[in-house]
C-alpha cells in the first residue's frame, strides 16, 4: 500500500492562534501521509492538536489561525487554495465525518435534502436525480427503509442513524480522503462497533484514504492500519498499528497505553469483595416513569431490584437511555419512583420526610459526570467542598476541607481558587472531595471519569479507589465504559431499556455471561490490542 503515492500528504504543518506574545502553537511541524485505501489513526488527548490538524486539511480553521506547511490532496496543496477552488475540494476530494451527529446536521432540513445537497454542490444532477442517488447512499450506509427516511428530520432519527446519514453525506461524491473526527465518540459501544464496521467496508469499496481522529485506543486498535500519536501539537510517534501496541517507543505512547483501562479478567483491583450482611442500598421492584410525548408515560426504570452491601462497589453499566442514571437518582430520592421501594441503610426512603430524609441523605455522597457544570462557578473550591458541612451544621470546617483536599491529592491552597481555574481532573477531584465531606456510607458516582482524558482518568480512578478502600463506603458506580467497570467493581449490573439484564460477580458478568445482550455489549467494547480486537470482532460478528 505504502508504495503508491499518498492521497493525503500533510507536511510540516504548523498552526498558530492569536498574535504577539499570546500566540498559541496548536500544531507544530506535523507530517502525516495516508495512502489510498489506508486507514491512519491520529490519537492524542485533548489539546494535542489532532482536531486542528484535521480541520486544516479542509481549510476549516477560523480566520485567526495562521497555517504553515503544506497539505496535499492528490498532489494539490489545499492551504494555498481559496474561494471556489477550495470549495471544489471540500466534500468532493476530502470529506469529513464529525463527532456529534445531532448538531452536525442542520435541524431545519430533511436528511434527504442534506445528502442531496452534497451531491448538487459538486455535480449537475437535478433535484430529483440527487434525491434518487441519496436513497442509494443511505442504503449503502446501512439505513433500511431509506426512501422513507429521506423525508425525515435529524431529530427524528437515533444517534446511530444520524451518524450514518453524516457518513452518507460524506461519501456522496466519492472523495479520495475521508476524515472521521471522533466520529464514534458520542455513540454507544454497540453502535460504535457498527459504524467502525461501516467505515471499514467503505474503505474496501471505494479505496478511500481514511484519517481517523480519536482519543480512544480501542478504536485505534480496531480500525487503524497505521497510528500517529500526537502530544501538545507534535507527532511523538508513528508506527503500524501492531507495532505501536506491541512495542511503543516514545515515552508518551507508553504512558498513554499504560493509562488506558483494559477489559480483561486480570485487570482489576487487588481485593476481596467484602462479605457483609447489611445492605447500604437496596432497591426493590423500582419503577420510575417520565411523562413522554402527548401525555404518554415512558418507563425509564422498569422493575429493578438491586442491593449493594456495605463497603461494596457495584458497577452499573448500560447504553444511553438504559435508565442507569435514573436508578442512581432514584437511589437518593432525587426522582420519585412510581412504585417499588428504596432502602438506604435499611430505612425506607419513600416514607422519610423532611428532617428524616435529610438525615438519611447525609449518609450519601454523589459525584457527577461533568465537574465543570456540577461545581458552582461563583463559589471557591473550598466553599464547594464545605457546602455539605455548612448545610448540615458541621463546625470546624477549614480543617476538614484541607483534609479532604489532601485526601484527593490536591494542594489545599487550591481551596481559595474558583473551579474555572482548575483542570478537568482537578475539578473532578474536588467533586469527589465534596461527595466525601460528610463521611458517607454510600457514594453514587455517575460517569465520574467519562469527561476526562485517559491519563487523567487513570489518576482520578486511582484516588477514588484508594479512598474507597480506606473509608470503606459502598458505591454505586454508574458508567458506560466497561473497562472502567471491570477495573473498579466487585459486582456488575447490566441495564438495557430500563430493565435489569443481569447482576452478578464481576468476572461472571463481564467474561462468562449467558445473557446475549451482555455478551454483545462486552464484545462491542473495543480493546486497545489489535490482535485481541480482531478476535473479538470476529466473535461479535458470530453473535
Amino acid at each position, binding site marked *: 500500500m505504502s508504495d503508491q503515492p499518498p492521497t493525503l500528504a500533510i507536511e510540516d504543518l504548523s498552526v498558530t492562534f492569536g498574535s504577539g506574545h499570546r500566540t498559541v502553537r496548536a500544531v507544530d511541524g506535523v507530517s502525516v501521509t495516508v495512502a489510498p485505501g489506508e486507514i491512519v489513526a491520529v490519537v492524542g488527548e485533548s489539546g494535542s492538536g489532532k482536531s486542528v490538524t484535521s480541520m486544516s486539511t*479542509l481549510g476549516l480553521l477560523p480566520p485567526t489561525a495562521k497555517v504553515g506547511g503544506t497539505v496535499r490532496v492528490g498532489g494539490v496543496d489545499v492551504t494555498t487554495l481559496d474561494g471556489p477552488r477550495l470549495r471544489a475540494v471540500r*466534500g468532493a476530494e476530502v*470529506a469529513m465525518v464529525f463527532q456529534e451527529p445531532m448538531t452536525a446536521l442542520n435541524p431545519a432540513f430533511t436528511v434527504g435534502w442534506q445528502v442531496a445537497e452534497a451531491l448538487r454542490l459538486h455535480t449537475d444532477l437535478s433535484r430529483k436525480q440527487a434525491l434518487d442517488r441519496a436513497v442509494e447512499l443511505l442504503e449503502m450506509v446501512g439505513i433500511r427503509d431509506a426512501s422513507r427516511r429521506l423525508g425525515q428530520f435529524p431529530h427524528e432519527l437515533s444517534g446511530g442513524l444520524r451518524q450514518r446519514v453524516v457518513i452518507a453525506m460524506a461519501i456522496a461524491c466519492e472523495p479520495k480522503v475521508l476524515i472521521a473526527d471522533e466520529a464514534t465518540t458520542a455513540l454507544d459501544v454497540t453502535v460504535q462497533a457498527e459504524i467502525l464496521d461501516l467505515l471499514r467496508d467503505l474503505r474496501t469499496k471505494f479505496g478511500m484514504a481514511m484519517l481517523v481522529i480519536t482519543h480512544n485506543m480501542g478504536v485505534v486498535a480496531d480500525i487503524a492500519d497505521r497510528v500517529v500519536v500526537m502530544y501538545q501539537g507534535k507527532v511523538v510517534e508513528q508506527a503500524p498499528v501492531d507495532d505501536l501496541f506491541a512495542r511503543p517507543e516514545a515515552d508518551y505512547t507508553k504512558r498513554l497505553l499504560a493509562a488506558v483501562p483494559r477489559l480483561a479478567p486480570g485487570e482489576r483491583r487487588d481485593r476481596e469483595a467484602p462479605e457483609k450482611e447489611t445492605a447500604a442500598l437496596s432497591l426493590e421492584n423500582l419503577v420510575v416513569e417520565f411523562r413522554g410525548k402527548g401525555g404518554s408515560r415512558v418507563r425509564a426504570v422498569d422493575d429493578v431490584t438491586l442491593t449493594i452491601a456495605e463497603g461494596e462497589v457495584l458497577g452499573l453499566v448500560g447504553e444511553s437511555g438504559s435508565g442507569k442514571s435514573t436508578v442512581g437518582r432514584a437511589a437518593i430520592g432525587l426522582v420519585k419512583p412510581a412504585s417499588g421501594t428504596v432502602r438506604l441503610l435499611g430505612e425506607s426512603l419513600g416514607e422519610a420526610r423532611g428532617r428524616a430524609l435529610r438525615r438519611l441523605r447525609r449518609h450519601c455522597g454523589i459525584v457527577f459526570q461533568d465537574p465543570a457544570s456540577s461545581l458552582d462557578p461563583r463559589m471557591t473550591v473550598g466553599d464547594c467542598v464545605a457546602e455539605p458541612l455548612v448545610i448540615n451544621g458541621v463546625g470546624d470546617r477549614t480543617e476538614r476541607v484541607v483534609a479532604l483536599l489532601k485526601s484527593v491529592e490536591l494542594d489545599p491552597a487550591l481551596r481559595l481558587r474558583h473551579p474555572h481555574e482548575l483542570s478537568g481532573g482537578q475539578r473532578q477531584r474536588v467533586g469527589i472531595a465534596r461527595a466525601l465531606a460528610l463521611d458517607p456510607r454510600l457514594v453514587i458516582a455517575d460517569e465520574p471519569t467519562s469527561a476526562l482524558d485517559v491519563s487523567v482518568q487513570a489518576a482520578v480512578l486511582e484516588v477514588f479507589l484508594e479512598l474507597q478502600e480506606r473509608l470503606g463506603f459502598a458505591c454505586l458506580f454508574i458508567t458506560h465504559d466497561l473497562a472502567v467497570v471491570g477495573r473498579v467493581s466487585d459486582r456488575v449490573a447490566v441495564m438495557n431499556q430500563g430493565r435489569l439484564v443481569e447482576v452478578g460477580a464481576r468476572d461472571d458478568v463481564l467474561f462468562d455471561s449467558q445473557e446475549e445482550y451482555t455478551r454483545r455489549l462486552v464484545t462491542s467494547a473495543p480493546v486497545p490490542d489489535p490482535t485481541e480486537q480482531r478476535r473479538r470482532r470476529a466473535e461479535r460478528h458470530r453473535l
Partner: protein
Amino acid sequence: MTRFLLKRIGQAVVVIFFVTVIVFLLLHSVPGGPAHGILGPKASPQAIAEFNREHGFDKSLVQQYWAYLNELFHGDLGESYTLNQSVASLIGQRIPKTLVLTGLSTLVALAVAIPLGVWQARRRKGLADYAVTTVVFVGYATPVFFLALVLVIVFTQKTQLLPPQAPQTQSIAGLFADSRALILPVLAGAIATIAAFSRYMRSAVLDNLAEDYVRTARAKGASERRVVWLHIMRNSLTPIVAMLGYYLPVLFSGALVIESVFNYPGMGLLFWNAAQTSDYPILLGAVLVIALATVIGSLLADIVQALIDPRVRGTIK
C-alpha cells in the same frame, strides 16, 4: 397538527373569554358607574336612576354580562359617549388605516433589519459592526416623538422634500393616492423597529454561526453565501417570527405617538382622543380588539414557527 391547532384555538377562546370578563368589569368600575361617566359629575340621582334603568344597569351583574356578550357577538361594542357613533364602526374605520401604517413600517423594518443583522453578525467585532451598533442603539434610545420631530424638521422644513402631515382621507385608496405623505410616518415607525429586530437577527445569526451544522455545510463545499442565506437563515428566523407574533397587537393598537405627531387618523389617535374625553366605550372596545390581536398573534407565531422549525412541529403532533 390538527390536534395542536384545535388545542391552541381552544386555549385562545378561553383566554378571550377571560378578557371579555375583565373588560366588562372594568366598564363597571368606572368611578360612579357608567351613568356618571356619561351624564357627568353633576347629574341628579333621578337622572342617574333613569339612565341606569334605560340601559339595563340596574340588573344583576350576571344578566348584564350576558347582555354584553350577546351584543359583542353581534359586533356591537356600544356607543361612543362623545362621537355619536358606534364604537364598532369607529374602530372599523380606523383599523385598516392603522394596519397600513404599522404594517408598512414593519415590512420596511424587516426588509432592512434582517439583512442588516446578518451583515453585522458576519463582521462581528469589526469596525463596521461597532459603527452600525452605535447608530442602531441611538435609534433605539431616541424617543419616537423626538425622532418624528427631527424627521419633520429635516424633510419638511429644511429641505421641503415631503409633506409634514399624513394623508387626511377617509378611504384606504386615498392613503395610497397621497403616498408621499405616508413616507415620514412609516419611516418614523420603522426606525425603532429596525433597531430592535436587527439586534435579534444579529444575535440569532451569531449563535447559529457557531453551530456544528455550519461547519458541516462548509465541509461539504457550500459557499459562504449559501451557508448564511440558506442554512443559517432558516434557523435564525424562529426568534424573529416569535417576536413578530407578539408584535401583532402593536400593529393593531397603532403607533400612538406617530399618529398624533403626523395627525394620522388611526387607532392610536382614536385611543388618545378617547382617553382625553373619558370616552370609556371606545377605550374598552380598543382594549378588547388589542387583546384579541395579542391572542391571535401568539397563535399565528406558534403556527409559523412550527412551519419553519421541524423540531417544534414534532412536539405538537
